[in-house]
């Protein structure tokens, strides 16, 4: 059975409290009353009402203060102010401060019942919205784990058995048969990689990233990234010219995820550039930030595409392979560092990415 909605009335006039009690008798609500602000706030804590009626004019702590306290205790509790006709303007003030409605004195039983019903309905909707939002977050997390368990694990088991079969039959297979195995393995490997990148987008946990923040030099993630993209650059005969001084001041961040940022951006610079071109890396202090610039002489990004390149799963029409995830992840990571990424690009000429990260400041 659903619990009865709880109403609390805070008013210093006994008449008001009595008549409210009378009106709500047998109405399906639970009711508590308080005849001053302090006792009222106490009851809000203990009783956790859905709806609170507060008289604005009371001796002791005022109705406004009560409203504030209620908000602090639980901002989803709905408040309605009770005011005399002469003070409708203060009711408006109260509503600006978060009260949901007002009840002018004197009121008829019907007026009171209607406002109570609306207040309770409001509270129900608020709680529902919050529950839905929570559910959505949970679903997102769950989606990540479903993808890993229901999709990735079986595919991994398939691939493992292919590995085994191929290995067991090594001496018996003809070249052609081996080539078939090879094709299957490559396709499954691509699928696994795709699943991994999906998971990556869903599960960059920004708050967890912050746990591993430390004072680092930008040269660390950059040299990690250079190492990681070196073979790709070599294959395309692209020279990466890096003129980054190791005298630069440190930033506050996480080396591994920042490495990932630079791998993704530099990887793009190489991927979206013709063979034999150059990629240039520089870094300098600009105000309170360290700005690293990655410039390529590649195919460029059209003005229509430019606003979308950081969206998850967005891909330009370059014909290159990819999942449209690299920049989305880079953006999330840089965001977590309170930094920013800027891009300028000209079709057919090249693209420049600027990654700006706040300098490390010694906290006292």
């Amino acid at each position: 059975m659903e619990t009865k909605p709880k109403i609390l009335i805070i008013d210093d006039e006994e008449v008001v409290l009595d008549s409210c009690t009378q009106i709500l008798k047998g109405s399906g609500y639970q009711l508590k009353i308080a005849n001053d602000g302090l006792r009222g706030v106490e009851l809000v804590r203990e009783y956790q009402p859905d709806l609170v009626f507060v008289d604005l004019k009371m001796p002791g702590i005022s109705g406004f203060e009560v409203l504030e306290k209620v908000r602090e205790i639980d901002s989803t509790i709905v408040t309605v102010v009770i005011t005399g006709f002469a003070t409708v303007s203060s009711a408006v003030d109260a509503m600006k401060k978060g009260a949901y409605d007002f009840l002018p004195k004197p009121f008829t039983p019907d007026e009171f019942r209607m406002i109570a019903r609306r207040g309770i309905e409001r509270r129900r909707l608020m709680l529902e919205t919050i529950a839905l939002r929570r559910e959505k977050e949970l679903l997102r997390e769950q989606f990540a784990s479903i993808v890993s368990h229901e999709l990735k694990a079986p595919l991994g088991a398939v691939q493992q058995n292919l590995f085994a079969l191929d290995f067991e039959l090594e001496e018996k297979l003809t070249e052609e048969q081996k080539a078939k195995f090879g094709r299957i393995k490559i396709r499954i490997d691509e699928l696994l990689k795709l699943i991994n990148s999906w998971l990556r987008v869903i599960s960059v946990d920004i708050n967890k990233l912050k746990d591993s923040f430390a004072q680092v030099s930008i040269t660390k993630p950059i040299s990690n990234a250079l190492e990681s993209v070196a073979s790709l650059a070599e294959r395309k005969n692209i020279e990466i010219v890096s003129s980054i001084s190791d005298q630069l001041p440190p930033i506050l961040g996480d080396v591994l995820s920042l490495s990932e940022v630079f791998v993704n951006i530099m990887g793009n610079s190489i991927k979206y550039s013709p063979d034999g071109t150059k990629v240039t890396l520089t870094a300098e202090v600009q105000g309170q930030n360290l700005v690293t610039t990655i410039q390529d002489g590649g195919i460029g990004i059209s003005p229509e595409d430019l606003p979308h390149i950081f969206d998850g799963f967005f891909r330009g029409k370059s014909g290159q392979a990819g999942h449209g995830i690299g920049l989305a992840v880079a953006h999330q990571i840089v965001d977590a560092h309170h930094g920013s990424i800027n891009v300028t690009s000209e079709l057919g000429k090249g693209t420049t990415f600027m990654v700006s990260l706040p300098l490390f400041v010694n906290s006292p």
Partner: protein
Amino acid sequence: MTKKLLMIDDDPDFVSGIKAILDKGGFEVDVAYNPKDGMTALQTKQYDLLLLDIMMGRGAEGIMIARKLRKDVKLRELPVLIMTGMREQIAFLFPGEPIHPRFVEIDELVEKPVEPKMLLEKVNSLIAAAEAKKAGKK
């Protein structure tokens, strides 16, 4: 002498794919399909290496086993090859570099699925490392 390995993993299909490779590689492989049976096997038999799945059951139950191993004076010396399907949870940037989670003294982490050559290499080198360590202690 033939090396004896124990594999703890709750996915029988995956296990068969790993076991076939190890069989052909000349190892003797026991399998436990849940952490409980795995612990029993570890306590009753002598192994040269443990292949451990991290994500079993409702969560990272494999880690519980690693913790128990660490507390056990004898089992502490057993080398462990940790296998995980959760690549996104570890630093996946530098796939070439070995990852040692240090759950126990001698361990290494690989991502599922594992290529035969790499699997045999890791198993052999972990066993060798454990033996070298033992010899050094004597």
